């Protein structure tokens, strides 16, 4: 029965049925499944599927958004239980759209995918200054800074973030990821950031890999 329930949670999440996901998660807890199991094999498994389909192009932004909403609805219910079980996020990331830019749809998608991989995400919103990125990373012990930019005129702010991180002496502990439509691999290398990915699902994969790497070190 447990596998079936978890599969059902995953399936309903992929269809964006927040209400049903909430019910299913509540039932699963009552049936004695652990919060960690529900999170990993139900919610995150579903979000992972969505991410893969998004990468392939078979689903698009609106579907990811409703799926993420369903995921959040489920996570809200699990939160106290996860804390009680002592389940910890696999890493902590701060994310934002850089200063001068208010485009946030891509940034939000990356955030959802990161959460879908079990990472804790601090969302700094839009129009975020390099100092805010770096200070947050230092103060909140983030392993990763994610910067998003959609304007060719604001991409340059990402370089400032890299420089500020260097000046703060956190470059060995914190990875900097960059993305957004005008950004590419070459730009990432030029400014000395650590990783560029073209889509949100790949961004989440890369973030998970970084967190593993940093833990190993």
């Amino acid at each position, binding site marked *: 029965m447990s596998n079936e329930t978890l599969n059902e949670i995953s399936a309903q999440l992929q269809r964006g049925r927040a209400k049903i996901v909430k019910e299913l998660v509540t039932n699963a807890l009552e049936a004695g499944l652990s919060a960690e199991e529900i999170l990993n094999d139900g919610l995150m498994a579903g979000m992972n599927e969505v991410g893969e389909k998004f990468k392939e*192009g078979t689903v*698009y932004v609106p579907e990811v958004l409703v799926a993420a909403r369903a995921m959040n609805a489920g996570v809200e219910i699990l939160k106290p239980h996860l804390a009680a079980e002592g389940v910890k996020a696999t890493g902590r990331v701060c994310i934002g759209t850089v*200063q001068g830019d208010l485009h946030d*749809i891509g940034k939000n998608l990356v955030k959802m995918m990161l959460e879908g991989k079990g990472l804790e995400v601090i969302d700094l919103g839009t129009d975020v200054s390099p100092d805010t990125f770096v200070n947050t990373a230092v103060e909140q012990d983030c392993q990763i800074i994610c910067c998003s930019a959609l304007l*060719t*005129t604001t991409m340059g702010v990402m370089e400032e973030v890299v420089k500020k991180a260097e000046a703060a002496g956190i470059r060995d502990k914190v990875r900097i990821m960059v993305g957004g439509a005008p950004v590419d691999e070459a730009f990432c290398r030029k400014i000395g950031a650590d990783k560029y990915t073209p889509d949100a699902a790949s961004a989440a994969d890369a973030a998970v890999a970084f967190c593993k790497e940093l833990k190993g070190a």
Partner: protein
Amino acid sequence: MREGKVVLTVNGVPGEYPAGTLLSAVLPDFGLFSLPCGGRGRCGKCRVTASGELSPLTDAETRILTPDELARGIRLACQTKALGPADVTFDGGREEKARILTEGILPSFDLDPVFGENGIGAAVDIGTTTLAVRLYDRKGKLLREGTRLNPQASFGADVVSRMQAALAGHAVELKRAVLGAVDSMLASLSPVPPAAAVITGNSAMLHLLTGTDVTPLTRAPFRAARLFGEFLTAEELGLSVPAPGAPVLLPPAIASFVGADTATAMLACGFADEKNGETALLADIGTNGEIVLRRNGRLYACSTAAGPAFEGAGISMGMGGEAGAVDRVFPGRDGKLAAHVIGDAAPTGICGSGLVDAVACLLENGDLDETGFLEDEPAVILPPVELTQNDIRAVQLAKGAIHAGIRTLLRISGTPVGEVKTFYVAGGFGSYLDVKSACRIGLLPAELRPAVRVVGNAALSGCAMLLLGRGLLAPCLAMARRTGHVELASSPVFTEEYMERMLF
């Protein structure tokens, strides 16, 4: 075809022209002639009555003209050549006030040009892609008109790239490039130096034209340094073809990305008339979509960024509306699609209007579902032209942004869609677009289809109104001032609508 010259009689006036002359090349000499589609046989705006030795009907003509029109001898001037003696009549000599302005329904106004006796005035629209000029005499008669590409394009296609080039030290070159292009158009079109000009354009274009610092326009909070609405002299601006002291009016902008071009388009669509209480929408659709709503005497405006998908950029086989571009797609036989290609050429790509049609057909066929998932990728439109899944995604981003912008204004103002009496659709792309297809794919709200009025380059029409009607400046300034700007980037309503309108 006959060799040498043939006699062509236009509105009763005979003249000699080389055999094979295109009628549209001759007609500007007889007063107004507007070719909104650039003479590509697509807009049907150059209908004339013609008889005599003429070239055979083209595909474009059989497509656009009704059987009744064909029977009456109506032809498209841009498609028809005089091969021998021929007779042409058209609705020329348009000296009445309201009809001076070529397209759409324009409010009438009191003729009182901003230039003096025997002078010629110029209305200029500096588009990011295209520059357009119309010349008028004091009676409000359209003398000549012309378009050319904006030479600033070599610095980047969109406004942000242009402004970035300015910030990178090319501001003077950008200014010179556009001034030079305007001067050369005026010189080639106008028999005498224009005595006055009105120059409209989006905020980025007017900033670059006047050499104003663009920094505030390139990053949030996007506060334009200058909203114009002012007279300069040709000399001050740096134009050398008009007389040095000739007044040049730069119409007022509404906000950073709702520029003077939107204000003049509003003027042309009657939005400056405070007594007009009709609920109306105006959308100027291009890379940027500017949208305006009038309701209960209040005006709301926003700017939404669609991106260049409808100009062919970012679409695997996308291209501009040039020869070889699929510009119309319709259901053909056996579930296949049929298409029209510009310029009787082999198909090499697809332009914006074709893209909108193609997506509408794929939806109708069931090859594409409402989430934008393409059953069989790629979808063949007209071999070798096809659309990929990524192309569909790019269309979703673009059409969703325009539609969501419209919905946001309606919702924020509390306007029920059904209340909109007139929906003015302006801009080049708006003129080529098949409104039915646009509604089918959700580029425009389907409920508004009956209210649609395609008005062509309304920005330039409004510009001409300011040139010919001195009394319009004050209402235009007041209109710009009282238009409320709705910032979409920070609007949760927009984000919500955008997600919904990305679907089909």
